[in-house]
């Protein structure tokens, strides 16, 4: 069956709350009913029909043709099915997803995959700060699922990550894996200052040795671990960037000793 397609008519005049565009909220609705769904975030009313042309199809496969950094909350709470955005998105894409697959071909803003519980988020471009992280008031960030970022990530990627795997093929900003509780964050290229800042447990893997590492990460030597083979097998279907990195022995740093100190950072031996 054909996907349910929404084609952007013109650049949106205000930020949009697109959290309604998920399969479980669209199933059983007609095109006219979908067109009437309110998506405004200001006092100016706005509906889906104002912004998008709708081509009806299977709501388990939603395709948004055209993107904007004003598209907020795309794929909020997605539980099953697939959403593909052919373009950029704004804040909190894929927040609180429990299943299914969200694909964004362009860039995503801050808090992408925030609080993710399950499913897969794939972002073709780069993401803003706090990838997978908690919003204010939440104790933990992402707690399951898989995130793939083909480009770069902003500061505090994987903030308070609790479970699940994040792959960033490019660079990550400062404080990658900050306050990490557990889980796995992988960065294909370099990271900014103080990676793993106050991480308690969990695994951070970086493609190049960090330039400014915290003194509270302690060198545990170079090791070739079986766990790296399992990790490589786990991520290989989604990204080939980490294959080469995980094949060779890696230097292990334990930290952050300023927090619990049960976490680890791996990087190629310099």
């Amino acid at each position, binding site marked *: 069956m054909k996907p349910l397609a929404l084609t952007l008519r013109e650049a949106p005049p205000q930020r949009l709350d697109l959290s309604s565009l998920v399969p479980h909220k669209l199933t059983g609705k007609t095109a006219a009913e979908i067109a009437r769904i309110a998506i405004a975030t200001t006092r100016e009313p706005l509906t889906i029909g104002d912004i998008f042309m709708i081509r009806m199809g299977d709501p388990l496969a939603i395709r948004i043709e055209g993107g904007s950094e004003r598209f907020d909350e795309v794929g909020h709470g997605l539980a099953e099915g697939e959403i593909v955005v052919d373009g950029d998105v704004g804040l909190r894409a894929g927040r609180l997803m429990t299943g299914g697959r969200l694909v964004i071909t362009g860039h995503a803003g801050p808090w992408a995959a925030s609080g993710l519980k399950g499913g897969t988020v794939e972002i073709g471009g780069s993401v803003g700060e706090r990838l997978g992280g908690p919003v204010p008031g939440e104790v933990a960030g992402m707690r399951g699922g898989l995130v793939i970022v083909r480009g770069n990530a902003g500061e505090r990627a994987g903030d308070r990550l609790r479970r*699940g795997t994040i792959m960033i093929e490019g660079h990550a900003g400062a404080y990658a894996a900050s306050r990490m509780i557990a889980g796995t964050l992988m960065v294909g290229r370099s990271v900014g200052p103080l990676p793993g800042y106050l991480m308690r447990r969990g*695994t951070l893997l970086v493609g190049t040795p960090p330039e400014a590492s915290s003194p509270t990460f302690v060198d545990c030597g170079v090791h070739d*671990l*079986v766990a790296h083979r*399992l990790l490589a*097998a786990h991520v290989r279907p989604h990204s080939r960037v980490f294959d080469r990195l995980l094949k060779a022995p890696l230097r292990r740093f334990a930290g952050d000793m300023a927090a619990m100190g049960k976490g680890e950072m791996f990087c190629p031996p310099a």
Partner: protein
Amino acid sequence: MRTLTAKGVRIDDTFAEAFDMRATALLITADTARWAKQAAVTMTGFATSVIGCGCEAGIDRMVKASETPDGRPGVRVLLFATSTGELQKQLANRVGQCVLTSPGSACYADLAGTENLRLGNGLRYFADGWQISKRFGARHFWRLPVMDGEFVCEATTGLTKTAVGGGNLLIMGANTETTRTAAETAVEAMMAVSDVILPFPGGIVRSGSKVGSKYKQVIASTNHAYCPTLRGAVASELDQDIGAVLEIVIDGLSAAAVGNAMRAGLAALVKLGPKRGALRVGAGNYGGKLGRHHFHLKDLVP
């Protein structure tokens, strides 16, 4: 009783009586096939019979490096017991003492079951707080720091309650040499069948037993009807031309697997023929009242 002859080998019109058992499967890997096998052999040692060992265990097959979760050579091991509690106890003790201790080893679940047994979830405490939990997709592993690096162990493994233990063949030959050759040939063919183990030494048991004894403290005693040296003294099951008997016991994850193994063993015995191998093949049972599974030899002969 004998009704069948296949290429000169006499096949008794009888059946093997087998029982429901609890079982699990593990995949043990290591840096080399030799060390994967060493861990598996050690873990499945002293596991010939539930009567005295608590469980029956053995190697199902060697697994190629390309087919294991960590890309290293592996060995698939099966463990059988009569209760879930005993299986859990044997699993924890054997993996803890024999696999965890073996250089470079890792241990994975290799059976999907409706219920789970604790594997790494129990062993993790060996790491004294330094254990690391890793969930990759649907699988959950524990990493335990050990003196040669890390021992990786899956958190749980599957349990099956529909496993079958006690399938068997009684191989009767003219003398010990031809009987042993016949048994070895059958073992080789049966080991190629997947999901089964032959728990006795090299797959063969020479001291088949009957239930009970003249001594009230002994629960199982020698199967005198099949002892060639007692042929004249007891109600023997042996013909004049039989000089030795060896038994092969089969445990499998399903009744079909046990049947397949017995079929493969019979085919190998018939192919070898009576001159070099077995003159006659029988099977052990308890009159059909104790075990739910009956494997009739006449249905399995090639």
